[in-house]
C-alpha cells in the first residue's frame, strides 16, 4: 500500500467512523496503520477492523495495546531488546530444567537420549545425504482438525460430534466459564470474544454459551453473542496458515478459486451471485454493493480478505438464527447452568434498565405498513431503513428515549452512537435540520414500500400522512394495481 492508497484508505475509514458516530483521531489512526504495515510487512491492513476496535477514550499507547489484544496474530510492538546477560541466564535456566527432567528417566531412555544427542551434534550432514528432501512428492498437506482448530472455528460438523461425547451433567462445571463468555460477548459485541487458552474449555464454553443464549429465549442476546463470536473467528482466520484458512472457508462458504486470467491477479475467490446477495444483507458499505463488484458469469469476485469478512457474516447469520434450533428451556438445564442462565437474565435486565429508557407506547396501528415492516425487522434493518424509521418516529413525537428503547433490540446497538444519530435526525445536533422520513416515491425506489402502496390510501405522499382512521375511510375502495 503506497502513500496515496494509504491516504485514500484512511479517509474512507474516517468516513465510516463518522457514519457510525465514532470519534476517531485521524493522525493517530494513520500512524497506527503505518506502524501495523511496518511491523507486518506483506499483511493487508484491510483485514483489521480499525473503526470497530478503535476506542476513543484510550491514549495512543493504550490503543496499541487494545489492538494487540484483539489481534494477537499480528506484531504491534518492537520486540523487547534482550541483553547478552539475560540470554545467558535464560539458557542456563533451560539447561537446569532439562537436567532435572533427565534425572527421572530410566536407563533405556537415557541411552536413547544419548543417541539422539550424538546425532544432533555430529551426524547431521550424513542424515541429510541419506534422506534428500522429498519436495516433489510432497502434496499440500491437508490440515487435520485438531481440538485447537475446533475451538478456534467451531463451524465444523466435528463440533457436534465432540459435544455429543459429553453428558449435560458432565459439562455443568463449565457453567461459570460459559456465563463469563456470554457476558463478555454482551459487553464487547463487535469487538469480539477474547481468546481462551485451554481448547477444551474454549470449545465447551462456546457450545454452552450458545445453549445459554437459546435457553433464555432472548433473540437479542443470541444475536449479540453470535456477533461477538463471529468477530472472534474472523480475527483468527485473517492470520491463519494458508491451508487451514482455505479449509475453514471452504467448509462454510461455497467458494471457488478464480480461473479467469483477467481476474485472477486481483481476486482469489468467487462466490455465486445468489449466495453473495444473502451474505451481504447486513453490510451497508458501498464496496459491498453488487454494482461495485466484479460480476461475471453468475459469480461475484472477492479478495481473500473480503471472503474472510463474508465468512464472519455467514457465521453470524448461522449462529444468530433461531430456525432449526433445539428447544431448550432454562428449567431443562443442569443446576449450575440453570443458575448461570438466571444470572445472565438478571444481567440483561440490569443492562436494559441502565439504559433507563421510557417504556415505549407504540401506537403501531397508526403506522403505515412500511414502518411496521421496519419495526418488525429492526434488528436486521439497514442504515437507510433505520434512518427512515427514526425520522418517522421523531416526527410522530416519540422521544429520543423511546426510540432508543426500540433500537436497543439491535445486536450491534451502541447507546452513544445511536443517541447521537437519533438526535442528529431530530435536528438537535450538527446541521440542526430536523429530517422527515423519505417520501413514498423515495421509499418505493429504496425498495422499502410494502406491496407497492396498495395498503395505503392513494393520496398519501409521505409515510407520515398515514393514519388509521383515514385508511378505514378509504376501505370501501378496492385495491388497485397498475398492470406491468
Amino acid at each position, binding site marked *: 500500500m503506497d502513500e496515496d492508497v494509504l491516504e485514500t484508505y484512511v479517509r474512507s475509514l474516517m468516513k465510516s467512523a463518522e457514519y457510525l458516530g465514532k470519534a476517531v483521531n485521524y493522525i493517530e489512526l494513520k500512524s497506527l496503520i503505518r506502524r501495523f504495515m511496518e511491523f507486518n510487512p506483506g499483511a493487508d491492513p484491510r483485514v483489521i477492523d480499525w473503526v470497530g476496535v478503535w476506542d476513543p477514550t484510550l491514549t495512543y499507547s493504550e490503543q496499541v495495546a487494545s489492538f494487540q489484544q484483539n489481534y494477537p496474530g499480528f506484531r504491534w510492538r518492537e520486540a523487547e531488546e534482550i541483553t547478552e546477560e539475560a540470554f545467558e541466564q535464560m539458557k542456563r535456566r533451560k539447561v537446569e530444567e532439562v537436567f532435572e527432567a533427565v534425572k527421572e528417566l530410566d536407563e533405556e531412555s537415557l541411552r536413547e537420549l544419548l543417541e539422539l544427542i550424538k546425532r544432533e551434534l555430529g551426524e547431521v550432514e550424513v542424515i541429510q545425504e541419506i534422506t534428500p528432501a522429498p519436495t516433489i512428492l510432497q502434496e499440500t498437506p491437508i490440515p487435520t482438525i485438531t481440538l485447537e482448530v475446533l475451538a478456534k472455528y467451531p463451524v465444523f460438523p466435528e463440533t457436534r460430534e465432540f459435544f455429543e461425547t459429553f453428558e449435560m451433567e458432565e459439562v455443568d462445571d463449565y457453567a461459570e466459564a460459559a456465563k463469563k463468555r456470554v457476558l463478555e460477548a454482551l459487553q464487547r459485541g463487535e469487538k469480539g470474544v477474547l481468546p481462551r487458552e485451554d481448547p477444551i474449555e474454549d470449545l465447551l464454553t462456546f457450545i454452552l454459551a450458545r445453549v445459554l443464549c437459546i435457553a433464555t429465549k432472548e433473540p437479542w442476546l443470541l444475536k449479540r453473542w453470535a456477533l461477538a463470536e463471529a468477530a472472534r473467528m474472523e480475527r483468527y482466520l485473517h492470520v491463519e496458515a494458508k491451508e487451514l484458512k482455505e479449509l475453514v472457508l471452504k467448509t462454510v462458504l461455497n467458494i471457488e478459486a478464480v480461473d479467469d486470467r483477467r481476474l485472477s491477479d486481483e481476486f482469489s475467490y468467487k462466490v455465486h451471485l445468489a449466495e453473495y446477495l444473502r451474505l451481504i444483507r447486513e453490510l451497508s458499505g458501498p464496496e459491498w454493493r453488487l454494482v461495485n463488484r*466484479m460480476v461475471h458469469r453468475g459469480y461475484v469476485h472477492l479478495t481473500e480478505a473480503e471472503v474472510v469478512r463474508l465468512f464472519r457474516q455467514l457465521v453470524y447469520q448461522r449462529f444468530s438464527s433461531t430456525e432449526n434450533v433445539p428447544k431448550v428451556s432454562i428449567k431443562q438445564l443442569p443446576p449450575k447452568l440453570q443458575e448461570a442462565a438466571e444470572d445472565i437474565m438478571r444481567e440483561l435486565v440490569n443492562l436494559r434498565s441502565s439504559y433507563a429508557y421510557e417504556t415505549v407506547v407504540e401506537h403501531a396501528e397508526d403506522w403505515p405498513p412500511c414502518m411496521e415492516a421496519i419495526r418488525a425487522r429492526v434488528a436486521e434493518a439497514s442504515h437507510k431503513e433505520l434512518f427512515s424509521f427514526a425520522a418517522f418516529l421523531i416526527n410522530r413525537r416519540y422521544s429520543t428515549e423511546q426510540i432508543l428503547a426500540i433500537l436497543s433490540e439491535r445486536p450491534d446497538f451502541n447507546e452513544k452512537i445511536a443517541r447521537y444519530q437519533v438526535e442528529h435526525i431530530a435536528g438537535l445536533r450538527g446541521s440542526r435540520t430536523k429530517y422527515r422520513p423519505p417520501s413514498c416515491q423515495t421509499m418505493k425506489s429504496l*425498495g422499502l414500500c410494502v406491496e407497492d402502496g396498495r395498503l395505503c390510501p392513494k393520496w398519501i405522499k409521505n409515510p407520515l400522512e398515514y393514519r388509521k382512521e383515514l385508511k378505514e375511510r378509504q376501505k370501501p375502495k378496492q385495491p388497485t394495481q397498475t*398492470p406491468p
Partner: protein
Amino acid sequence: MEGSRSIPASSPSLSVRQALQAEQERRLRFVRSVFARYYRSDQPPPIEVTEPERREFAYWEFGKQVMTRHLSFQSVGELMKKLAEVVPLHAYRSSAYFRYPAAPMEEKGWEGADLVFDIDADHLDLTCVQEHQYRVCPVHGLAEVLEGKCAECGSDLIEVEWVCERCIEGARAELVKLLNVLMDDFGIPESEIEVGFSGNRGFHVVVYSDALRQLDQMARREIVMYLTCEGIDPSILGLPWKGRKTKGLRRPSLEDPGWRGRIVRAVARHLVRSGEMAGWLEDPDWSAAKPSYWRELISKAIAEEKVRIDPVVTQDVHRLVRLPWSLNGKTGLAAARIPLDRVEDFDPFEEAVVLKGPPVKVRVLFSPKFKLGGEEFDALEGPVEVRMPVAAAVYLMLKGLATLSRG
C-alpha cells in the same frame, strides 16, 4: 329551456354524456366479441405457464373496475377454459410461487418468485413521446390543448398513449442491454430466460432460475441497482474517479468483465468517435489524460450503458405478470413471446397482431400514420368514417381514437 343556453361549454349536456356512455358500452361489447373469437378459437393461443398449480392468476373483466384475484388452476388447460369463459380485458399470473395460491395474501405461503424485468418506452425519456402526445375529444376529434376540456363541447379530453416505431426501438435497445447483463454478468443460461412483448410499448423478461427464485426484496434491490448503475462508484471498480489518482491504477482493458469492462469499452467507443487521443487503444493507460477528462467520459459511458428497467417491478416479490400470448386490453395486441434469437428483428406491429374477423367500419377521431398487420394506414384528421381490418379498428378503439360506426 332558456337558461341552459347561457351555460358555457365547460360541461357537456346530459344527452351528449349519455350518448357517449352508450357508445362506449357498445364499443366495449364489440371489442369483447373480437377478443372472444381469439380465446375461443379452434386453434387456441399458445399460452404456456410453468408450474401453474403453484401460481396465483388474476384478470380484469370488460367494463369492471375491479381485478379478480387469487385464482388457482391445476393446469394450463383449466386456465384456458376459464379464459374462454370470461374473455378478460387483461390476464395475469403471479411471478411468485405459493403453497396455497387461492388463499388471501397473508396466508398464501410464499415459496419464491421468478425474477421479472419490465422495460417500458414511457420511462426512457424518448423525444418522440412528446411528439405523439395527443388529446382527443370523443365528439370533435383532435384537441388543440393538452389539458382541460374540449373548447367546443366541454367533454373531458381523452389522453392518448400513442406508440411509434421509435418507442419500440428505444425499448428494444434497453432489452438488448438487459439480456447482455443477464447472460454475461449473471451467467443466466438462455434456457432460463423468457422474453415477451408487453402488448403495448415495452418488453418483459422473466428469469426462471432455481438459484435466484428465493431472493428477497433487498437482494432484488441489489440486482436493480446493478442494472441501473444506481450507487455505482467507479473508483471501487478501479477506474479513475473522484479522489483517485490515475497513477497506480490497473491498465484499462476492453476485455474486462462486468461494469468495468463495459465502461472501458464505452469510453473507447467515445474516443474512436471523437478522434481524440489517437493511439490510446493500442496502448491504453489511464495516465494518458487528467482524471477530470476520464471522469467526464466515464459519466457519459454509464449514462449510455445503464439499463433502464422499472425498479418497482423487479423488486416486488408478489408481482403479477401478463400471461404470455394473452391480449393486452389497451391495444388488442398479444403479449407475444419472443425467441431469444428474434429479439433484434421482432416486429410487434406485425407479429403481435392476432385478432381476426371481417373488416369493420369505424369513426376515427384522429389517427397518426401507422402500420399494423402488414398494412399501412395514413394519418387521419377526423372525425371520419372508414372501413378497417378488425385488428387496426380495435387498436384505435382501445387507444380512444375511434368509435364504432353506427352504420
